[in-house]
């Protein structure tokens, strides 16, 4: 009888320690998950900010300014304009 009791006691202690370690491991993993999710959120925010920056750089007023001032481009008048026909467009002519 005593032997069975001791055996059960040992089993109970081992189980208890197992619960503690697995709980600890679970929390560790959860923290890692949490950190990764936070990083994901951060990256998403950064992505949004970069997209915002991109569209700020790409606004029409700025494009026109750069085209006119840095690249010295001008709007062609009627004589400088040409309209390609559909077949020209299909051929990939510029």
């Amino acid at each position: 009888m005593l032997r069975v009791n001791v055996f059960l006691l040992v089993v109970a202690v081992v189980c208890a320690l197992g619960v503690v370690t697995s709980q600890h491991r679970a929390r560790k993993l959860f923290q890692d998950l949490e950190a990764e999710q936070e990083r994901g959120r951060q990256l998403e925010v950064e992505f949004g900010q970069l997209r915002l920056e991109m569209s700020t750089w790409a606004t029409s007023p700025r494009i026109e300014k750069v085209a006119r001032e840095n690249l010295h481009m001008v709007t062609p008048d009627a004589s400088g304009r040409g309209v390609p026909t559909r077949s020209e467009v299909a051929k990939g002519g510029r």
Partner: protein
Amino acid sequence: MVVRRRLQRGHRYIESPVLQLALQGWRSRMVGLLLMLAFLALVLRGFYLQVINNEFLQEKGDSRYRREIEISASRGKILDRHEEMLAVSTPMKSIWAIPADAKKMTGEQHQQLSALLELSISDLDAKLATEKTFAYIRRQVSPEVAERVAALKIQGIYQEKEYRRFYPTGEMTAHIVGFTGIDDKGLEGVELAYQRSLLGRPGSRTVIRDRRGNIVEDIGASLAPQDGQDVHLAMDSKIQYIAYSQLKSAVEEHKAKAGGAVVIDTQSGEVLALVNWPTYNPNNRDSLTGAQLRNRALTDTFEPGSVMKPFTAALALERGKYRADSLINTAPGRLSIGPATISDAHPHGVLTVAQVIQKSSNVGTAKMALGFAPQEMWEMFSGLGFGQAPGLGFPGEVNGRLRPWKNWRPIEQATMSYGHGIAVSLIQLARAYTVFAHDGEILPLSLVRLNQGSASGNRIFSSQTMKELRTMLEMAVQPEGTAPKARVSGYRVGGKTGTAYKLENGAYVKKYIASFVGVAPISAPRLVVAVMIDEPSAGGHFGGDVAGPIFSRIMGGALRTLGVDPDAPVPTAPMKNDGRRL
């Protein structure tokens, strides 16, 4: 033996005379009972706290490790029809303080904080001087600055996440997009009109935190945050930019008070561009005036003048009383109706109906209109959307003024035929012109992108009449017409000028509103462009001279942007052999 001797010297423990006394048995039983009762009381109390009334302890326990955290949701973006961003939220930090704690900071910290937050020392002190336990020091600080503030580790200074709205396209789209207040609440424009769908719903989760503040476990149910929905406007930001830059330069060139322009896709009824001048920068609203804020194209009405004549002509053709080549005598350029006289700017003599439109004769138009019953004229105007809000769901859109037909006098009917005694907004005018482009149907307008290809609306005129009217409108931009400057190279366009006196305190004054509304390409109409310039004071005041050229540039630019096939011969440069133009 030593031990024995010692024992013999005193009493043996067991033989102590005190212990020999017989204690009364009830005393030990009494103590035992009392202890038992005390123990029972503890057990009962324990049972009560743990099982029956366990909320209190549960709450205490929860408050030590359980935290409910809010997951913030971001406001939806506003995008144009090609996914170009017009308004977007990005997270910022607000810096707040518990003033009593924060006052204890050192002089050095004090200076660093004020430098980082770009606040003067006195401003900073003023914010901390409050008796309250909470004070914002600065809101919407960029994340980088917030990190450096956090690195100062000042007691009593805290941070909170919040969102700030950015408008990359700035003043160009300010009137349509509008803006939000500091608490993410739409105050103007689409931000206000679509507040409900733009707004996100924050979620929450319940977690266990450890001693260091790390989240170690999720407990209970979590509520996922719902980000606000994106709104796709019908606007094409390229066309919007063309309209904006042309309008801006024209208002400056003519030293005008204000101006507006609207571009409508006549297949779907979508508003591709809507601009007003003056405008404002929604990212920096420090010195904002009412004049800048006004979305004139929607909220201001004016007497449109001659741009209304094509409707009168259309009704005249529709009723079969006139044909496009019917003759009307407009000599001597004056017409008396009762005590009043109306006149033409230039007397013309005998004109066909088409020429009345081409040369914009008030007398000719009035003669046609006097043949209508007031009710049918009112029904036409009302059918065209005058006197009622255009139904865009936009804040502040106005009805305009169209008086009930029952008390129209003949002179009023005559002046209304050429756009006086009736008040409309620019968007109403642009919308009414969709009948010419859409074969007699008036289209419902939309500020948001629609995914259907072609819309349909109420039929006002027959398609035959509209075909004839388009020819007349095209004549108006020929050299003999009122607006040769409105022509667009490569496309056949048609439209009508308007030059109206302004009404001030019920009397006409010598100030003008120049306008032009037109349709192109005439062979297969795609766009309606309406332009209005308020009080041009330099370089002429006639609609054809002031609004015509802007119309031409906006229309030309918009058609090319959309890739609409030209329907008129384009003067082209000769081609080189490799297919490139010189």
